[in-house]
């Protein structure tokens, strides 16, 4: 059965082509072992194992690797020396100085959330803005270059965190990475059933006569996305990572169909 589908592969490779808009977070793990300082912008569309940001020619200006050596026991404000209140220390409440980036603080912690897949997305925006009001580089124009650098890093990381947590698929991939499970977005689709299903949907999208039809497919995709999002939540909770990966794969493909529909609409 698989062999007979080979032609689909070539066809698919042309029609399923996409821009890598999803983030792959393989480099999050590598940060701890990487000889290079951690990047200020950790969310990039990564396609290769070539660590662009690790290139020394590039690393001079933006990063603070100090955070790596730092333990949470006695974090002090670099500016006023006050001891941090708890492990989350992006901003000093006593002197209002922005702190260096600490990669060990994960996105869930930034938003004051428990590390789980099911989170209330509606509260993210408010928290995001609260952080930006403290961390955004526009607000520290008159401060030292050092602190402006911290602001750029912290603010960019909060943007990434917000974007990642607010989108189910990105959130799923991220939470897996925190468990040490990498999602390989480049993997070849090997499930013939999914392959033919996707092919059929793509065909329907291609041949859709009007926007009404496209909207219909779109709402079908949304249903599937919701379904697999639930499956992911269950599998992840039971730590069945293989199943969780399978859900992510499904979500990835349905999402791509949706992107394709949006382009056509």
């Amino acid at each position, binding site marked *: 059965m698989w062999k007979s589908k080979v032609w689909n*592969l070539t066809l*698919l*490779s*042309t029609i*399923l*082509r*996409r*821009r*890598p808009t999803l983030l792959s977070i393989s480099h999050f793990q590598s940060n701890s072992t990487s000889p290079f300082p951690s*990047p200020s*912008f950790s969310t*990039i*569309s*990564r*396609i*290769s*194992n*070539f*660590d*662009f*940001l690790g*290139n020394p*020619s*590039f690393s001079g200006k*933006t990063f603070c690797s100090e955070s790596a050596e730092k333990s949470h026991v006695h974090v002090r404000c670099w500016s006023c020396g006050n001891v941090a209140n708890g492990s989350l220390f992006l901003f000093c409440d006593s002197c209002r100085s922005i702190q260096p980036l600490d990669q060990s603080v994960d996105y869930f912690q930034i938003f004051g959330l428990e590390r789980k897949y099911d989170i209330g997305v509606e509260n993210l*925006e*408010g928290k*995001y*803005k*609260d952080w*930006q*009001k403290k961390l*955004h*580089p*526009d*607000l*520290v*124009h*008159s*401060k030292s270059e050092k602190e*402006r650098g911290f*602001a*750029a890093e912290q*603010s*960019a990381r909060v*943007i990434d965190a917000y*974007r990642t947590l607010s989108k189910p698929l990105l959130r799923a991939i991220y939470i897996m990475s925190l468990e040490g499970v990498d999602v390989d977005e*480049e*993997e*070849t*689709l090997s499930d013939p059933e999914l*392959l033919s299903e996707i092919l059929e949907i793509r065909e329907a999208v291609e041949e859709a006569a009007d926007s009404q039809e496209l909207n219909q497919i779109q709402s079908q995709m949304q249903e599937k996305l919701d379904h697999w999002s639930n499956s992911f939540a269950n599998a992840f909770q039971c730590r069945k990572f293989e199943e969780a990966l399978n859900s992510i794969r499904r979500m990835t493909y349905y999402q791509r169909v949706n992107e394709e529909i949006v382009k056509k609409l």
Partner: protein
Amino acid sequence: MGMAEPAYTVASDSETTGEEKSSSAFPEIAIGIDVGTSKCSVAVWNGSEVELLKNNRNQKMMRSYVTFKDDIPSGGVSNQLSHENEMLSGAAIFNMKRLIGRVDTDPVVHSSKNLPFLVQTLDIGVRPFIAALVNNVWRSTTPEEVLAIFLVELKAMAEVQLKRPIRNVVLTIPVSFSRFQVTRIERACAMAGLHVLRLMPEPTAVALLYAQQQQQAVHENIGGASEKIALIFNMGAGYCDIAVTATAGGVSQIKALAGSTIGGEEILQNMMRYLLPDSEILFSNHGINEIKSMGLLRVATQDAIYKLSSQTSVQIDVDLGNELKICKVVDREEFEEVNRKVFEKCESLIMQCLHDAKVETKDVADIIAVGGCSYIPKIRNLVMSICKRQELYKGMNPLEAAVCGAALEGAVASGISDPFGSLDLLTIQVTPLAIGIRVEENNFVPIIPRNTTMPTRKELSFTTFRDNQIEVLIVVYEGEGEKVGKNHLLGYFKIMGIPPAPKGVPEINVCMDIDASNVLRVLAGVVLPGSRHPAIPVMEVRMPTVDDGHGWCAEALDRTYGSALDLVTVQKKI
């Protein structure tokens, strides 16, 4: 620059960029300037609120133009004579905001040929020939120079009123401006001795003012503290810009921007063409009489358009000289029909912006229409009808909103705080245009899509087009066109010394970075399969790199190299 010894300061670029010292205990408050295509205004935070500055004729809105007379040019800030009269002599240059940073193949430049001064094009991708008539001689100038002269006057006016030297400014710019055009604006500011602290797309300045007003309403317990989404429609003489913003707690997160080069000028030209269909041919020789006729037609048409905002029909009666007389009654329906395409474009921009912001009209709390064109009934109606509303937001003066926002940003960015929290504000900006590179067959591949929150960094992978290709050309463009020809060229550089390999094997990674100061850097590196390390040193280039005449570059590159140094997008596996 053309002429000898201009009567204004020219500071070097290096003098005014880069350093931002804040040694003084009382930081200098940056002023906000809204340089409009037609009018200009200056505002500043006075310690408790935003105040618009007035010139010595008590005007808050000053005409954006410069008159060249003998050796001393003078602008619309200080000039005693009326703009209308000077326009008839060919000595006044205006509309510089439409012309700045554009080459002579640009449609906007072409549509400027019937202005009452000289705009000539050779259609070869260089800067157009722009000149004022001084003592019967064409005196060449550039939009940067005209803008600089004008800014010098604005600066002097502000210095007299604020009794201190002015250096830092926040300027508003159209959404559709390319990064190259931005460099021309910065150049004009540098020539005038001004340091650009921040450039804000116009509707985002309005968004900041809105954020402040919402914050005040919360303090006064009028509104709730929850997030409010606003649609901002800003149409002046030169540009139409739209933003969707989500505001909460004084923070305005821009969700999406959309912009185009349509505005009052286009409406005016459509009407002029309607009133005098062969005007372009009649005026093409730019003689002194023709310039006068052009100017008279312009003034009369402008006047009629203003009147049509409040009355349903208007009588136009103008003697253009040379036995050319126009005597006509125009009603509002005619006016709307003549400009149907402009209004349709406005509608599609609003739809696009709402779509990009992923916002439904029912979720929009306030609709803000500002800019000179927001007085046109048809414009107000179309904005309301798309959003399915009966009324527009009332809290702003349509002509002052952008400059007030710029002044607020000036205070915030200067580190000023207000005991009442009035400056507890922030705008989180997005990229107005996609930035990407050229790949095979002149296709454009965006690397940073438009409406990406800044600062940002994105990376994409490409490969070689031919076997044993050892060099590739990274050509950076900004815009929305699928083909590079539709977009703005920002610069290019070559990656050399790629180890010979079959086509498709070397992995060429291109990374784009926009930092907190909105500086764009492009990085390119090469890896071969199986290696984790770059095959050659990574190149990092600050953009834009092109200068005037950039319209030529793209074509020359194409002619010289063809596809020899092309890149190919890496096809994704299934």
